[in-house]
């Protein structure tokens, strides 16, 4: 169980990482303090943010739940940041990920990354926020999502469905994609294979 000081620290870390509101009950279970202690600490933390003019965060308490968010007076700058992230025409990475999702939908993050060879957390996030792609739970693996282009996006391209993408029938089942069919596992297997291959005489 954390000390009094580190209780605040843990609360801040948890609220920071969560992105959505967390109930007192849940926080109490994770941290190991009583709900009352959590509530008291959240009130104190909230007061601390309020008093500290150098802080840009605030806590919203509602329905025995807590949400960490930005202070109202910084709204303008925050909106400027989100808008400027959107207005930039799609980056090369954005176009690549979008094209992979278009031709291979529904596809998991690990499969996209295996094909591109690089991590693409941020790019996916950006495409989701712009409503160009959507995600559903993966029917075969509950731990991850699968991604597809949104209908609105296809419409904006003048397409009825993904099958009307140029060369869809050929490209969506290209031979070269076979090695990625079982997610990114293949890559580390290849690395192993590369190291284990024997000298043949």
């Amino acid at each position: 169980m954390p000390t009094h000081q580190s209780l605040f620290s843990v609360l801040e870390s948890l609220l920071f990482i969560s992105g959505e509101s967390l109930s007192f009950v849940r926080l109490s279970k994770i941290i190991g303090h009583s709900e009352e202690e959590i509530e008291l600490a959240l009130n104190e933390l909230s007061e601390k943010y309020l008093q500290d003019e150098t802080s840009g965060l605030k806590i919203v308490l509602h329905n025995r739940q807590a949400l960490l968010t930005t202070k109202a007076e910084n709204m303008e700058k925050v909106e400027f940041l989100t808008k400027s992230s959107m207005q930039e025409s799609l980056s090369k990475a954005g176009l690549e990920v979008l094209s992979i999702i278009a031709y291979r939908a529904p596809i998991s993050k690990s499969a996209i990354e295996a094909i591109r060879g690089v991590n693409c957390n941020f790019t996916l996030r950006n495409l989701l926020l712009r409503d160009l792609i959507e995600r559903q739970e993966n029917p075969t693996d509950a731990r991850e999502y699968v991604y597809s282009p949104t209908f609105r996006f296809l419409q904006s391209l003048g397409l009825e469905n993904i099958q009307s993408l140029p060369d869809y029938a050929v490209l969506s089942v290209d031979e070269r994609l076979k090695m990625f069919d079982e997610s990114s596992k293949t890559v580390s297997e290849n690395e192993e294979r590369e190291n284990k291959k024997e000298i043949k005489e």
Partner: protein
Amino acid sequence: MAYQIHLEQFDGPLDLLLSLIEKEKMDITSISLAKVTDQYIGYLNSEEVVSLSHLSSFLSIASRLLLIKSRALLPVLEFSDEEEESMDDLEMRLKEYKKFREVAMKLNLLFGAKKMLYSRESFSGLQVVFYPPKDITAEDLHQHFSHILGEIPLLETLPEKELQTVITLEEKILELQRTLSDRVESSFSQMIREGADRTDIIVSFLAILEMVKQRFIFVKQEKFFSDIHINRLIS
């Protein structure tokens, strides 16, 4: 084989070389390199596995080691500037590699220390707004996807002819002993297999030097660059 090395899988020739030197508790010098040359070459032909794609790197280091070893065995031998440079370079590279091999272990400890700093999901909690990029067409998606397909690396497969059998010093010596037990005389040109590569030639030459040292044979050469005649010493 005269020596036994049962070391773990090596990630490349420098890893192997460094391990051999460290096993002998020596510093990285031309002397220690000459000393572990046989073990290094033995490893290539041992039952330990060397990956196909790494084989050429192992061989390139092997030829430098053989140069160093022949310099140690025959101090009078003269080497070209290029050869001298490649020998010094190996020493330097090994020292450089050693630093990283050591710090890699430190990083491994840091990874294990469980100090992950987590960041937030970007723009988390914000409303999704439909915001299609300007001037993007279905053809753009087609082009990008085709380009990605073209970039997919295929498993490297080396053609058969690039595969080489490395002959160890021991094998060469045994081969020469066999030849000489049938006949009393042989020559360097007979000893080298047809189409032998540089490594093979150097190994053969080292085998001769080794056997001269062991007083098993004596050699004669009429003039520079002419064939070397090999005769068995009858004890």
